[in-house]
């Protein structure tokens, strides 16, 4: 009751303060993310608690990625106040000047990997690319490393890799060559392409979406694949005979930005500060397998210890994986993707 009264009071005060600005616009922001179970988890972990704490309304939308932001900003029709993107998209969009500068007096960046803290974008969560194999085919002696995946003699079977995410496939191709995880970046693109060339003839599908990767493994269309850990976790929970681990995973960050020309920039800044705070970041792994970007989340005590070992961005698991470098792909993505396409479509 008191809360509702309070909101009414605020609205009236707002109306009195400025007759020209509608009160509702001032306390509503729109956040866009990828949709699906991931966005549902974000709603519970980030959006709802933030809306409650700041006393605002958070409207939601879904995005297809950087081209949506580009369309809104270059077309002068910015609908979103905050949107999620892949980290390499953030790096590229930043170069194109599509985002508002972030104010790190409002946003506390402690606990977030410095590679994911930039003038106009900040890390929000992690996805891992992992190697999954079917246990009904291999038992527990399946391929454990990318070198195993590449070894078609020792591990005969059908294979799938990502055809749409050249960055991820080139990273695992570098690992398959035996490059240690801390030496993968900067990726030797031509070397990685040679590595892809070696396995190319044995790839039965190049997946182009997370759902497709999941379907290929679930239906036994392939026996092993690269897959996002969220999808792999869903498969395992649904009882599919699969196994995967974070060893040699490729840790890919997602980030959030305020598109240039957002009408509620200041409020968006406050909301974003909440989203990346350890307290709310710790909520995310309670609902979904994407790990928090802020490592302080693991110190809040909110995440049960038995859950921590399954989270890709826990300090223990981070050590086993390659961290994808967004700045590297910002400058090389176009060339690398074209070369990659030329190779896999031969």
């Amino acid at each position, binding site marked *: 009751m008191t809360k509702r009264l309070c909101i009414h009071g605020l609205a009236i005060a707002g109306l009195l303060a400025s007759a020209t600005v509608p009160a509702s616009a001032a306390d509503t922001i729109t956040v866009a993310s990828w949709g699906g179970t991931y966005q549902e988890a974000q709603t519970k972990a980030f959006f709802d608690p933030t809306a409650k704490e700041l006393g605002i309304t958070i409207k939601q939308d879904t995005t297809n990625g950087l*081209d949506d932001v*580009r369309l809104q900003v270059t077309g002068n029709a910015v609908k979103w106040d905050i949107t999620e993107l892949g980290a390499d998209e953030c790096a590229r969009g930043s170069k194109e000047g599509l985002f508002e500068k972030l104010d790190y007096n409002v946003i506390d960046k402690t606990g977030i990997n410095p590679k994911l803290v930039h003038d106009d974008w900040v890390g929000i969560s992690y996805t891992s690319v992992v190697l999954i194999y079917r246990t009904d085919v291999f038992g527990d002696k399946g391929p454990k490393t990318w070198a195993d995946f590449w070894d078609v003699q020792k591990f005969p079977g059908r294979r799938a890799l990502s*055809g749409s995410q050249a960055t991820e496939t080139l990273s695992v191709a570098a690992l398959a060559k035996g490059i240690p995880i801390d030496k993968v970046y900067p990726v030797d693109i031509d070397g990685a392409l040679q590595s892809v060339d070696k396995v190319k003839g044995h790839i*039965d599908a*190049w997946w182009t979406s997370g759902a*497709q990767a999941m379907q290929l493994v679930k*239906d036994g269309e392939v026996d092993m694949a690269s897959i996002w850990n969220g999808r792999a976790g869903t498969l395992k929970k649904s009882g599919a005979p699969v196994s995967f681990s974070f060893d040699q995973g490729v840790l890919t960050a997602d980030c959030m930005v305020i598109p240039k020309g957002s009408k509620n920039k200041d409020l968006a800044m406050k909301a974003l500060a909440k989203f990346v705070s350890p307290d709310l970041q710790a909520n995310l792994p309670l609902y979904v397998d994407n790990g928090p970007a802020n490592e302080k989340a693991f110190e809040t005590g909110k995440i049960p210890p038995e859950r921590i070992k399954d989270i890709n961005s826990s300090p223990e698991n981070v050590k086993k994986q390659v961290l994808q470098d967004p700045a590297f792909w910002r400058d090389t993505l176009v060339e690398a993707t074209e070369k990659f396409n030329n190779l896999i479509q031969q």
Partner: protein
Amino acid sequence: MSLASASLDHASHRDGVINADALRADARRESRGMFALLSPGLFLVFAVIIVPIGWLFWLSLFDESGQLSAANYARFFDQASYIKTFVTTFKVAFTVTGACVLLGYPLAYMLSQLPRRAASICLIFVILPFWTSVLVRTYAWLVILQRKGLVNTWLMDLGVISQPLPLANNFAGVVIGMTHIMLPFLVLPLYASMKTIDADCLRAGMNLGASPAATFRQIFFPLSLPGLASGLVIVFVLCLGFFVTPALMGGGKVIMWAMRMEQTTSLYSNWGAGAALGVVLLAVTLALLGLFHWLLGTRATGVWSER
């Protein structure tokens, strides 16, 4: 209004040679009136088709730094995958159109020969898939065709094959899935044109001693050509821009032009890169339509000459 007055004028000047000038003026007035009636439609076509396409073409001429350049088009020759994609697109379109003709012509012929009631019931089965989403139908094909899908499981259980047939995540899967989706687009115009063929022509042919096969070959088939040609053109053009089915059934190994557009649009920071792909597809489609028109003659390309 001008139509009514025009016909009255015609009636009052039946011996019109003397009034040639007046008649010409009248015709001009009439065509002006017609043009005025058409103008809202013409304006719409101009605003929603001509202008955006012109804009698309204009955008395709600028590179990432906003400079006028041919970079977006040069890319098609520098990067081998674009030509490969282009060839794949046409290979798929030709194969699917061919498969649709092979399946669709006998089907439409059968429908046209059935009694009206039976034909309309059968037609419902042709149209029914139209009401189901393309995505759902494509996933259904995946369930049927994949390695552990219905077809392979049955054939293996029956001992017909020892290894699963590669039916999904390849060219064959794309062709099967797309043929299913495209078939109604061929059958419906073909059926409509077959229904208009005068049965008396066939009877006359047989009366004059032609065998049923000769009657079909010399009378029915040529008369059904306009319908076939229009169905063929619709299917072929739709195939060129298809996205969902190749994306899901091709296993990333059958990349078509529309899939490439999506990828290029998100990869490059300038709209021109994707726009150039659109311009090329449009130009090639128009050129092909022109070629069909020229090859099959005005009579056969029913899209223009149904009137």
